[in-house]
């Protein structure tokens, strides 16, 4: 298992994006001219490394021995029993080193940075998981590391901020705009445009300009490759539904991609419904957005009639983003995936259920995918199976949850 690292699954009918980074009408490269050279170089290097045996070996070894892959596929028996419907399988990305799926991407990109001879990496982060994963690989490879984080997120994810600092990264609070993930990404782009010669920008999700949506997806696809093989081996069949939360969309693309050609498998992404999609206070562009351009790509986006990007709301910092990776917009438009939304309250309820019934503390982001399961598993028969990307663990969210419960730790 876990043999193919960067290949899609055997049947190569789905082949996206185009050479210029388009998934249908979505994607592309909408950046300042100064950055186009760096993006061209990155795309060229990646095209070479993708099939390079040395690179694949190095990546594979790090994933096995540093990250601890493959992660288990686990039948959530008590949760399944209490929901009384489809069997719920969890792909345990919370058990990755650093506690989320994000590290699969940061390892891949840091190895690319090393190949390019760039001594410094930068990243944006919302929940701090991508920042931690970047700080981790930077420490491991001896690279300088600066992480941009919205000031609001610095407060709500203070544990991760301290983790990054312990690993030698410099965390830079961003005070512009809404002080969350999108503003951190603006600031990281500004840094990159200034320091493009010696710096690689490790984007943390399947967004940004081409080639990022493609290469982040490919690095994250190890999740789906393992899970697909594990389902066949442990359960004897493919799942009926694959479900994942969607912020920028990396954990969802990572688990969806190897199943795209399996037409009988439903793919469901769950966005942050915040206070409810109808209230406008949410972060669900695929449910309630329109096509626009932000952070280098064309995709669904929460923007107003004047094209201004709107402020978002979610209890989970990692989903609190007005855009979404272009490949999800494409999968939505061609009908290959569907996108639901879970509210803050629904996510919190699912969060509590998984703690009590399985002894697993999920991230608040992940809890949005679980909320879909709580609602929909009971409507499915017992011979059906749901595969959930348990994208990360929730230690980082303890303070937020305690706060919601009115407890000061």
């Amino acid at each position: 298992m876990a043999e193919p690292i960067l290949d899609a699954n055997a049947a190569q009918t789905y082949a996206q994006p185009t050479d210029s980074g388009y998934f249908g009408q979505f994607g592309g490269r909408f950046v300042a001219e100064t950055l186009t050279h760096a993006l061209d170089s990155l795309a060229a290097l990646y095209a070479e490394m993708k099939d390079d045996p040395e690179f694949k070996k190095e990546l594979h070894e790090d994933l096995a021995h540093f990250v601890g892959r493959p992660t288990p596929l686990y039948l959530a028996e008590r949760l399944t029993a209490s929901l009384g419907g489809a069997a719920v399988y969890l792909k345990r990305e919370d058990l990755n080193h650093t506690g989320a799926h994000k590290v699969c991407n940061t390892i891949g990109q840091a190895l690319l940075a090393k190949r390019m001879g760039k001594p410094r990496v930068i990243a944006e982060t919302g929940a701090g998981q991508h920042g931690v994963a970047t700080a981790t690989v930077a420490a491991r490879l001896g690279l300088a590391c600066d992480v941009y984080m919205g000031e609001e997120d610095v407060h709500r994810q203070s544990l991760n901020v301290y983790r990054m600092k312990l690993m030698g990264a410099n965390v830079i609070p961003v005070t512009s705009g809404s002080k969350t993930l999108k503003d951190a990404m603006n600031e990281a782009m500004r840094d990159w445009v200034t320091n493009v010669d010696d710096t690689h920008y490790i984007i943390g999700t399947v967004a940004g300009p081409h080639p990022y949506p493609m290469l982040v997806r490919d690095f994250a696809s190890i999740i789906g490759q393992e899970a697909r093989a594990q389902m066949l081996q442990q359960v004897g069949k493919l799942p009926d539904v694959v479900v994942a939360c969607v912020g920028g969309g990396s954990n969802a693309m990572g688990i969806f991609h190897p199943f795209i050609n399996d037409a009988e498998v439903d793919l469901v992404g769950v966005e942050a419904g915040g206070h409810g999609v109808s209230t406008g206070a949410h972060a669900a562009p695929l449910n309630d957005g329109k096509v626009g351009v932000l952070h280098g790509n064309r995709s669904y986006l929460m923007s107003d009639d004047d094209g201004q990007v709107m402020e978002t709301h979610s209890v989970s910092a990692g989903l609190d983003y007005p855009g979404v990776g272009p490949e999800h917009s494409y999968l939505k438009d061609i009908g290959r995936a569907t996108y639901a939304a879970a509210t803050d309250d629904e996510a919190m309820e699912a969060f509590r259920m998984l703690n009590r019934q399985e002894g697993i503390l999920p991230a608040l982001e992940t809890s949005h995918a679980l909320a879909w399961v709580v609602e929909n598993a009971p409507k499915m028969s017992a011979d059906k199976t749901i595969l959930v990307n348990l994208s990360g663990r929730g230690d980082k969210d303890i303070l937020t949850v305690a706060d919601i419960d009115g407890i000061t730790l």
Partner: protein
Amino acid sequence: MDAVPANQGRIAAEFARLAQHGKKALVTFITAGDPGIDFTVPAMHSLVAGGANLLELGIPFSDPEAEGPAIQAANERALANGMTLAKVLDMVVEFRASNSTTPVVLMGYLNSVLAMTNFAQRAKDAGVDGLIMVNLPQEEAADLRHTLSAVGMDLVSLIAPTTADPRAQEIVTTASGFLYYVSLKGTTGSGALAVDEVAERMSFLQTLTDVPICVGFGIKDAKSAAAVSAHADGVVVGSALVQLMADSADPNIAAERLHSAAADIRHGLDG
């Protein structure tokens, strides 16, 4: 990609006039609606009176990812004042009531323009001559360039220090109006202007095209303008003017200060 015919409008006329007199273009940038709605049109007139040849007007945007702190703050102030792209066009209409010759170019981010139905025609009707899109590199620009060209507006292309020779060659084939050479790797208002590097790059670019090339980013006063203009057809000054406006208590004070700043730089260029 087929070449777009140069539009024979105000931009071409102004550069032709400057060339005839052996002068360099002073291009000024301010953000529309900053620091107050009523600052902008008087500011445009006083920049022209001070010696500006072409006015760039920034379209306020929520996520100005290529701007430094001064213009970021200007965007936030303008949005807080309720600015929209429609209001930017209204300002151009107001400006045109008493100025029908100075070219006006809007500068901003693609999402603003995409959100307005029939933008090209509306902008043209308002009296806008061209558009600079910060986040629209050559490979993505063909559609918008043709839409603008159809109504006689120029899409101004940017070239950066990191633009490789073959790419620069490609960009100049579709250039119209003027070319904008970004003098440094960084955001607007950065300090690290290296005149020698600009000179070297400009001497190469000028062999590629007859389209006028203006240099922007990092030019803040008469001295830096004079140094750069020796190697260019014009200079763009932005953050310094935006900062000056931010520090002005009312539209009259701002207009006076902009007038003398423009005159000072004009003097440096004509030196």
